[in-house]
């Protein structure tokens, strides 16, 4: 019985638990509810993945209102995969959150924090399960609004301006998305994604649909933080509380990329988007520009969280590059990197949170000599850094392999070379951190520091361990990604 309603439960469970946090006004209850919400979401997501891999795409009519007038939840392999990623990250973060917000959020406001995390989670999950274009906007805004609040919980007053800026840019992006949806509704008369996919090819030549695609992609690109629409990201990641940065870095942009893939390959799946609309070149250029700009700027940062934020911009460039190839290998590479980057960056930001917890700062200069005092934490940062570079036996290597393969298979060997060169930039900024942590003399503050508490280290190592595990035995992620890519690209009639 429950099994039939899993798609709805996936969204509803965290959504209901959120206001209950407010009723109880207690930090502990809030945390328990967050644990319950995220772990049950994970359980549901795994069950859904199981259902999808054995039974094919799940189609669920919300409230039994039939599509295309009712809102429909539609989950295919890619969707199920993203659900698992988001809920798994949320589950691990909920283990991490209790200790990490001790120094960052005053006790009286913690229940609000947990409430917002649950709302954000349900928004992200909703974006992933929905099969209705406007419904996606609604969930997009739910997750975005709660994100703005979450960012503003940061200790530094700059978190407020970061949240504000993200609000302005994010709302512009979402509004662009709505305009795009409106234009598509005008031409096809439906909002259901599957229905749109059937109806768009007939009207694909009209300027309205072309404008719609433009608005949709720009709006989503803003949420994805694709270069050059990434300006909100560095400050937002940098000044938010550690747990929020982990959660955001590992999920928000990933779900936005998922939405992007949905629009381009499912809704517009009947049209050869890359050929008909001539966007492939533009997308590739912007992706590569993002790869280099992100890595290059990262090298000069003194705040390590900010450094990693710019690194995320570069990594998002990799994902978009994979998507822009339009081949199974390329798309699979982008999807694999979605997963690999989520666990890698999540782990790195968790480790940085450990450092922030003990040190109160994540400035590179303050971290001098920290390698001796916090060996486990720095080891996590090093392993995460190696995964960002793409060293074998880490998850990053798998993604790089597929991206380069896709480039060579498309006879685009200059792009392959560019991907490799940008990995070298990653070596530079990772090694800056390594050298500061291990080669410089520790300050007195660092000398007297204790290593990170277990309650923070264990979740960190869960994610970093995943980054290593899925770098060695990547068959699960690869199979899912290739199945998803084939499903998306084979969706053309």
């Amino acid at each position, binding site marked *: 019985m429950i099994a039939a309603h899993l798609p709805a439960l996936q969204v509803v469970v965290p959504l209901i638990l959120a206001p209950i946090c407010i009723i109880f006004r207690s930090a502990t209850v809030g945390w328990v509810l967050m644990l319950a919400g995220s772990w049950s979401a994970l359980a549901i997501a795994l069950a859904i993945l199981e259902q999808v891999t054995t039974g094919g795409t799940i189609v669920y009519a919300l409230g039994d209102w039939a599509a295309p007038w009712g809102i429909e939840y539609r989950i295919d392999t890619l969707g199920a995969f993203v659900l698992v990623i988001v809920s798994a990250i949320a589950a691990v973060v909920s283990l991490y959150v209790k200790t990490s917000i001790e120094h960052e959020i005053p006790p009286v406001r913690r229940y609000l924090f947990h409430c917002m995390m649950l709302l954000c989670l349900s928004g992200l999950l909703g974006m992933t399960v929905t099969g209705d274009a406007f419904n996606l906007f609604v969930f997009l805004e739910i997750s975005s609004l709660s994100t703005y609040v979450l960012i503003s919980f940061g200790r530094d007053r700059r978190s407020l301006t970061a949240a504000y800026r993200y609000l302005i840019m994010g709302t512009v992006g979402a509004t662009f998305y709505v305009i795009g949806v409106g234009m598509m509704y005008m031409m096809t008369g439906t909002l259901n994604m599957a229905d749109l996919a059937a109806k768009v090819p007939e009207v694909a030549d009209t300027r309205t649909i072309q404008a719609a695609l433009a608005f949709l992609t720009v709006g989503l690109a803003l949420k994805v933080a694709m270069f050059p629409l990434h300006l909100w990201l560095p400050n937002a990641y940098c000044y938010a509380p550690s747990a929020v940065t982990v959660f955001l870095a590992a999920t928000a942009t990933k779900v936005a990329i998922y939405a992007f893939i949905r629009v381009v390959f499912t809704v517009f799946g009947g049209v050869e988007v890359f050929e008909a609309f001539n966007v492939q070149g533009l997308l590739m250029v912007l992706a590569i520009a993002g790869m280099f700009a992100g890595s290059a700027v990262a090298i000069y940062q003194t705040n390590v969280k900010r450094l990693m934020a710019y690194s995320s911009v570069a990594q998002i460039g990799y994902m978009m590059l994979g998507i822009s190839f339009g081949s199974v290998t390329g798309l699979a590479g982008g999807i694999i990197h979605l997963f690999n980057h989520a666990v890698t960056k999540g782990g790195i930001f968790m480790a940085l949170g450990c450092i922030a917890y003990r040190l109160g700062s994540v400035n590179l200069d303050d971290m001098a000599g920290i390698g001796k005092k916090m060996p486990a934490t720095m080891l996590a940062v090093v392993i995460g850094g*190696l995964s960002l570079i*793409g060293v074998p036996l880490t998850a990053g290597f798998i993604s790089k392999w597929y991206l380069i*393969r896709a480039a060579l298979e498309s006879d685009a060997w200059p792009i*392959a070379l560019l991907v490799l060169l940008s990995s*070298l930039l990653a070596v530079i900024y990772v090694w800056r951190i390594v050298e500061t942590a291990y080669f410089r003399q520790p300050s007195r503050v660092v000398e007297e520091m204790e290593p990170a508490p277990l309650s923070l280290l264990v979740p960190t190592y869960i994610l970093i361990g995943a980054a290593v595990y899925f770098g060695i035995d990547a068959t699960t992620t690869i199979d899912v990604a290739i199945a998803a890519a084939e499903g998306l690209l084979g969706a053309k009639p």
Partner: protein
Amino acid sequence: MSPEATLLLAMAAPLVGAIGIFVTGYEPNLRESVTMVTALITFALVATLFPVVASGAAPSVTLLEMFPGLSITFTLEPLGMIFAGIASFLWIITSIYSLGYMRGHHEQNQTRFYFFFAVAISAAIAIAFSGNMLTLFIFYEVLTISTYPLVTHAGTEAAKKGGRIYLGILITTSISFLLLGMIWTYVEVGTLDFKKGGLFTNGAGAGMLGILFGLYIYGIGKAALMPFHRWLPAAMVAPTPVSALLHAVAVVKAGVFSVLKVTLYIFGLETLRDSGVSDWLAYVAGATVIIASLVAMTKDNLKARLAYSTISQLSYVVLGGMVATSLGMMGGAMHIVMHAFGKITLFFCAGAIMVASHRTEVSQLKGLGRTMPVTFICFTIGTLSIIGLPPLGGLWSKWYLALGAADAGHLILVGVLMLSSLLNIAYLLVIPVRAFFSEPDPDVEAQFNDHHDDHHGDEHHDHAPATGAGAPVICPAHGIHEAPLPCLIAISITAAGSIALFFFAGPIFEFLKPIVTP
């Protein structure tokens, strides 16, 4: 135990040992015993595999599938066995040597040193046993990363800078060239397995082959082919046992071993001969041989001189591979063994000199032979092997290399080999000659004796033979002792090995023959 199990155990043993080292770090003697025992076990395991491979078998183990259709696979074959053999054998010797050196030099963080050493050896053996290019690449990178803490062991600014160059060059070459070449190969032929005769047997274009081959050879930065050789002298900032084993044996040999393996099993000697894509690289190798020797002559720092000598000698092996003839390949493979023993002896001696007399420059070594006779005799033996004179093993590898080059018609390269022998005499042989036959330079002696006087009050400065250092302890008013006993034992074993190899070259040749017979 089945060969497959032995294979895996031989790679796992050093890792287990590493954990043991980490755990027993608090008690140095216990920790050192763990290292020794692990090294002995590892060599024993590797040794049992020799007869298996000699009989023609090629046991193979697939660990797990990393990508659909591509696994981490280990396969035994003669070239890999040779490399694993010398790596594991010389680990034992180096462990003995490290005991004397690290304690004599009062090095910090010794647990970290022994730990990463064991990990690096495990990676080297895994490279030796790789069954496909993916596996080789994985452990090649693991070797780079695990040797970084060893290179930067001192933790000083100089160590950091040296580490940057080391890592920078090795990672840049491996990511930009080797990885690209590897994936390109996979896209072209659909497999990365090492196959006799190569993967390109059904006629690939010479242009593509040429670029691909270049990517591989330059991608293997550990072979120190010019212009990507700078990491080797930069890595000399490491403690001498590191320089000795890793940069005279494991790391650089992993590099040239990979070059030979790629030449033999990815491209195949015939394909290379027919397309001629390796010719220009043979000349690059030849140029490296000469240029590195010339630079070595200008270096006063002993370790720097030996580093450039290593670069030169590595290009011997590369040259052997690039001329793409059977004898050239055999010569290159044998040179891996000969050079390993010869060079490690030289590095051990350099370290011994440093510990015993604090001298690092060649110009400071005049007359030292009289106070450190054992050290300098072994140094001479090592030098003669490098030069390639009988009765040292180095003669045979040079012989086959020259024959191989002549076979391919590259008479210029034969000349290069001869010329480099002369240059070796010029920059290497002068050292022991001056040590034995020249008078000590008074200014140098004064400089060091002042230093020596500073030490007179220290606890470690003891002249009494009761410490167990059996070699003659000469300390007149101020003097120098021989090296610590463990160091001397190690040096003597490797020097003796170089001599023994002269007589054992035959069996090695026979063992290696199957790699070039179709």
